[in-house]
């Protein structure tokens, strides 16, 4: 398998050095031209990624995914004709790069696999990350499968992460060269097969976002000045609680303290996340005068339990549905773990027990919610990910 990433960086401080060139090819020989499908959101990163892939000599085709069924967007104007700015921006970028461009309608798959899952997870009292889900089920599943069937070799995105290839052809996913921009967390769900067909041309960028914008401008891409997107793409107004309320309806329930005493009421347990402090509206302070945080959500009883910040300290967790990038850890070992898209990493001891990932933290961590993904790293290398099912709190019982 020839390396897909044409922008392999020179490894520094990495467990395994990347192959300097594809196996069987002389040093410095041009890599095989790949047929690449570039997913283009209409933003600056995916546009520059597609441009870099084309410049590297690959045969690139751009595709914009129509994912939303919401009334203000793509599919609605009488018949889904280029009504949304993002698809227009993506098309403009593709035209400037000089590559063919298509819009693929994956809205139904997206609704089933990402939006409905998101709602169901919140309904069950968990906190999902729909971006990981989208990478796992849409970009590197529905899109990748269609791309491969149509004769493409790889799917290219604007994620900041690095793919390296060992001399034996094994591929590894690593953090981006610039840790501040690293997005390997949301790609932690990719398995070997998905990674084999992934291309991240921005992963080796040791430049700032401003420099990516400058590169876009230099390439004549009009999206250079477009603001970054942060919100969940299918909740356009950013109001997640409002979105869930429309989907799940109001369901009044009790807010309890750790002893089970009722402190107040809420309008739907799904509106809360473990670790949340704001929006509890309890009206009167805790006896000790300290702020209270959401500790637990019980969807069946429809209760939310709150308590002091110390009670949030988690010393260990159990995570299910692991997905490994390469071999799973064979024996208990020391790794680092990341628990949120923009969170830091923390030292852990990890092992696989009966198909589940068990993690013990070297230092207690806070704000760990069931439903979140834990991504396990060995140095910069992504080992795999799993969905947090349960946490152990050392101080909860004592507090």
């Amino acid at each position, binding site marked *: 398998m020839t390396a897909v990433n044409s922008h392999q960086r020179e490894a520094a401080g990495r467990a395994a050095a990347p192959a300097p060139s594809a196996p069987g090819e002389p040093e410095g020989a041009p890599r095989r031209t790949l047929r690449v499908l570039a997913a283009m959101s209409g933003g600056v990163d995916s546009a520059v990624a597609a441009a870099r892939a084309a410049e590297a000599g690959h045969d690139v*085709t751009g595709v914009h995914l*129509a994912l939303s069924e919401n009334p203000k967007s*793509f*599919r609605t104007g*009488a*018949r*889904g*004709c*280029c009504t949304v700015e993002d*698809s227009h921006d993506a098309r403009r970028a593709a035209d400037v790069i000089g590559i*063919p461009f*298509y*819009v*693929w*309608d*994956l809205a139904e*798959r997206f609704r089933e696999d990402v939006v409905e899952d998101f709602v169901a997870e919140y309904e069950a009292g968990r906190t999902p990350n729909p971006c990981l889900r989208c990478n796992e089920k849409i970009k590197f599943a*529905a899109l990748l499968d*269609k791309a491969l*069937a*149509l*004769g493409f070799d790889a799917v290219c995105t604007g994620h900041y992460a690095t793919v390296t290839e060992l001399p034996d052809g094994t591929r590894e996913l690593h953090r981006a060269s610039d840790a501040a921009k690293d997005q390997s967390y949301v790609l932690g769900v990719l398995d070997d097969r998905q990674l084999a067909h992934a291309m991240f041309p921005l992963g080796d960028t040791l430049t700032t976002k401003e420099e990516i914008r400058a590169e876009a401008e230099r390439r004549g891409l009009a999206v250079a000045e477009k603001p970054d997107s942060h919100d969940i793409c299918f909740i356009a107004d950013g109001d997640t609680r409002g979105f869930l309320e429309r989907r799940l309806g109001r369901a009044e329930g009790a807010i309890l303290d750790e002893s089970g005493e009722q402190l107040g009421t809420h309008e739907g347990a799904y509106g809360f996340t473990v670790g949340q402090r704001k929006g509890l509206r309890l009206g009167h302070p805790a006896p000790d005068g300290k702020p209270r945080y959401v500790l637990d959500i019980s969807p069946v009883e429809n209760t939310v339990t709150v308590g002091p910040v110390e009670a949030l300290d988690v010393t260990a967790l159990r995570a299910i549905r692991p997905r490994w990038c390469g071999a799973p850890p064979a024996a208990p070992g020391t790794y680092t773990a990341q628990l949120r898209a923009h969170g830091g990493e923390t030292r852990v001891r990890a092992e696989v027990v009966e198909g589940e990932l068990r993690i013990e933290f070297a230092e207690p961590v806070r704000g760990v919610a069931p439903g979140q993904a834990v991504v396990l790293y060995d140095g910069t290398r992504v080992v795999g990910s799993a969905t947090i099912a349960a946490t152990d709190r050392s101080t909860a019982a004592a507090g």
Partner: protein
Amino acid sequence: MAHIAYFDHAATTPMHPEAVRTFTAQLAVVGNPSSLHGAGRRARRTVEEAREQLASALGARPSEVVLTSGGTEADNLAIKGLYWSRRDAEQRRTTILASPAEHHAVLDSVEWLEAHEGASVVWLPVDAYGRTHAEDLRAALTEHGESAALVSVMWANNEIGTVNPIPELAAVAAEFGVPMHSDAVQALGQVPVDFAESGLAAMTVTGHKVGGPYGAGALLLQRAYAPVPLLHGGGQERQVRSGTLDTPAVAAFATAVHHAVGRREEYAREVTELRDTLVDAVRSAVPDAVLNGDPDPAGRLPANAHFSFPGCEGDSLLLLLDSRGIECSTGSACTAGVAQPSHVLLAAGSTPELARGTLRFSLGHTSTKADVAALADAIGPVVERARSAGLS
């Protein structure tokens, strides 16, 4: 890429060299046809000669030619303008009878009137080829004649190429005293189109489908009708359409129509032969491909071939052919943003699956045997691959 085979002439076709000469020569000449001085008079003469040339080629009187910016504007003017003027004259006339297989310029105008102007719509039945029959129009007018504002049925379908019996339909509408409009954008230059003989009240044509420039079209309109204008202003076109006339485009439009109509018979013969070769090639490479529209050449545009490929997504086929230098369309250009089943095929009773995996190959005056040969080589493997990608 060595050879590009262009099979999208129904979207737009290369300009006729003589139309290019007319167009470029006029670009260098100053003059607003509404001005009274010498420059204005020269421009006016050019425009009026073009109008006469158009009228003569289309079987109309010069005063029946209302110049517009193209087919979409002419359709909007006919549908909305006639609806408003008929309703203003008689309040009860709020029913529009139209084919469900119309181009979106008609379809969406009708639906807009329904949503915003109190129109009620009777969608006329169509057969499995998307054709509207005189007896169905008669039945509909027998029921709705007293409230009918207008009838609109396209001369030939832009997707599947089915030709409607326009003179027959117009005769039925005339019996009930209801004006009938027809979008003849695709028919012009391929089948005989004569405004006076058709009995239509209004008829849409446009330049860029017959070798003229973009942005020039016309609504042929009997003198008896005064549709309410969409564009108010200088009243340049019979007080029905305002806006400074685009003299170069109008002149080149007339040149192109003159040539297209003059060469029509010979062209239709040649392009029919090429189209039939294409259909045979596709069918032998993909035995289960379904030819949509009327298989009888008498009922179909000579330059149109339209297929459903079972188990394939139209946009997969398009992508794979495009990458091999073969340019075609999944349907009309306006549906090409996102894959959606063709409303024409659905109206004609096709299944949503078959209506999704479609390709339209439309030939034109620059099409060659080499184009068809390139498609014949590519279509088998392309369909096989698209099928493996399946329906998403």
